């Protein structure tokens, strides 16, 4: 009996195609909005999490200069770095700090035989690998000894290795950076996009000493550096360590109480958390608007079901006369309401997911349509169908068969 009632509910909707689809519109828009917002919300979350874990975990970045521009990596040309290698050593000795890597960077053409490639060159100490939690999966990182001796060795990002050497094994091969030859000793595993969309694998890492002596025009050995990145043991260590570094650097740089910091400390995790909270709040707001649309859609279903019950009073009377119980009549109209909401939900999921996929092509991150959001949409829609279908279905079931037949 249930199966044939489902089939009948369906044929009732088909019989009023235009009216049914207009009724479903509220559900379609509501569900599509919810699906889209959840897809963008989880997309942003996943993107931020990936970006942060790509930077290394429990990471703090100290930049020279008070100016805070963008991500902190792009100091204006001519800004004198205020941080020194000694600052890095001092920071590394703070409690809770696992490693501190002084680093500088510049963009340069890298040449290997006939191939060449423009990439981001990072110059640092072996602590860099530890801070980034990113070790070569082929070959090895350079050692403290090699750094001190300014050995001409290089570790390549996967992208650079592929661009310069293609299918050949880069290990032991020579590359040239600004006319200086380095030997490739390691290749970093792929890490994908970082914050801002840059490809993290498009990089090479050189020993700090070698590059300061050789690449940056040789001669003068300057102990000043642009950036110190460091990792701490646990996320709880981030804030106290940030505080300790600020005190340490102010003391070391002999800054008076009235002077502003000549460095900036960035807590990537905190930045990501703030960003996540903001996007979470926005998705919640838009999701709530979708939810309101769902309720409006439910009221639309209730309205049209009441009209349908009135129009079909005689049919209800006939059904009751030939043996339909009140429960069967109620079930029939409830099924119709449920079908309106569920078919609307299905269309809404398809519509919302379609827009999410298209949006993912234009946004800097991929949208994530989670199965959970689809299941929740269907559950909510079923709830709305039953909730708003109950009253009209009950009106139908309450009819007296004699009165209904007379109409």
């Amino acid at each position: 009996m249930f199966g044939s009632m489902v089939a009948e509910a369906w044929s009732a909707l088909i019989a009023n195609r235009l009216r049914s689809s207009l009724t479903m519109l509220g559900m379609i828009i509501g569900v599509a909005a919810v699906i889209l917002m959840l897809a963008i919300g989880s997309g942003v979350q996943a993107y931020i999490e990936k970006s942060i874990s790509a930077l290394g975990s429990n990471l703090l970045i100290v930049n020279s200069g008070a100016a805070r521009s963008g991500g902190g990596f792009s100091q204006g040309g001519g800004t004198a770095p205020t941080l020194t290698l000694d600052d890095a050593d001092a920071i590394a000795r703070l409690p809770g700090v696992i490693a501190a890597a002084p680093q500088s960077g510049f963009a340069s053409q890298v040449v290997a035989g006939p191939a060449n490639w423009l990439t981001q060159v990072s110059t640092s100490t072996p602590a860099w690998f530890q801070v980034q939690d990113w070790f070569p999966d082929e070959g090895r990182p350079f050692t403290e000894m090699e750094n001190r001796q300014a050995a001409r060795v290089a570790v390549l990002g996967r992208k650079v290795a592929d661009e310069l050497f293609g299918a050949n094994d880069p290990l032991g091969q020579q590359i040239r950076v600004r006319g200086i030859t380095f030997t490739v000793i390691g290749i970093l595993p792929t890490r994908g996009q970082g914050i801002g969309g840059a490809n993290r694998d498009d990089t090479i890492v050189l020993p700090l000493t070698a590059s300061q002596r050789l690449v940056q025009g040789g001669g003068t050995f300057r102990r000043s550096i642009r950036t110190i990145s460091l990792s701490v043991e646990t996320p709880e260590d981030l804030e106290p360590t940030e505080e300790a570094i600020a005190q340490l650097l102010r003391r070391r740089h002999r800054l008076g109480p009235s002077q502003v910091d000549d460095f900036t400390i960035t807590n990537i995790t905190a930045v990501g958390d703030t960003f996540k909270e903001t996007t979470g709040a926005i998705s919640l707001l838009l999701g709530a608007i979708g939810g309101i649309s769902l309720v409006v859609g439910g009221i639309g279903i209730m309205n049209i079901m009441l009209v349908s019950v009135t129009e079909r009073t005689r049919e209800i009377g006939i059904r009751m006369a030939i043996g339909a119980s009140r429960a069967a009549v109620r079930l029939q109209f409830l099924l119709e309401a449920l079908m309106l909401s569920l078919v609307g939900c299905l269309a809404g999921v398809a519509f919302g997911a379609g827009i999410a996929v298209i949006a993912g092509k234009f946004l800097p991150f991929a949208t994530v349509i989670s199965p959970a959001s689809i299941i929740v949409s269907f559950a909510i829609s079923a709830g709305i169908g039953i909730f708003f279908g109950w009253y009209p279905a009950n009106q139908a079931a309450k009819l007296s068969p004699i009165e209904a037949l007379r109409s």
Partner: protein
Amino acid sequence: MVAVLDLAGIVKDYASEAGAFRALHGVSFAVQQGEFMSIMGPSGSGKSTLMNIIGCLDTATEGRFLFDGTDISAYDEAALAKLRNSAIGFIFQQFNLLPRLSSLANVALPLVYAGLSRKEREARAAELLALVGLAGKEASRPSQLSGGQQQRVAIARALANNPRLLLADEPTGALDTKTGAEVLDLFRKLNSERGVTAVIVTHDPGVAAATNRVVRIQDGLITYDGPPTQDALAGGAGHEYAVHPEVAA
């Protein structure tokens, strides 16, 4: 043998805004298995009220009503629905087929509520359509059928669950004379060949004449119960009629 219908002292009151209104003032008669009878009366006579009680669509205020030997006064709505489904076949003046459904589906509808499988329903419905002379019209919708054909579909639907009683309300009222006569012939054939008990509610003397027994009702009382004689059939409003001796007793 147990009577299909057994009414004794049936009273029906309606509460209306103008106060209580008594539609039936104590009606008693019985219908035996295999009877073919009609209930006659002008509008307002209480014959619709009587039909609703016989059809288990309504219950009496007072009196005893046994359907197939069972007192149904204590039945709730669900039990009455089940009884209507299994034991009563309704036929209406306006056919009352569902316009969206094919004739096959219309005939099969009571079988849905009886809980039969799709296969059983369709086989049974096709068999019934053939019985009423509509083989080949299974897929037609009511709008594609003539009035006489629609009424035949309705009769097939009424027969779906092999009811104890076929209850028809002005079954020829919406048909022309010739088609009406054909439908009456079908009733007569079902009654004589298959022993179907049939009660036809009508104000048309021509229809009543086709049945074997006439119960006349006026102002909520039975004024005649007997064979369809000329006198019994010709009675219109304003005439006095002798109450049949058996009933008056």
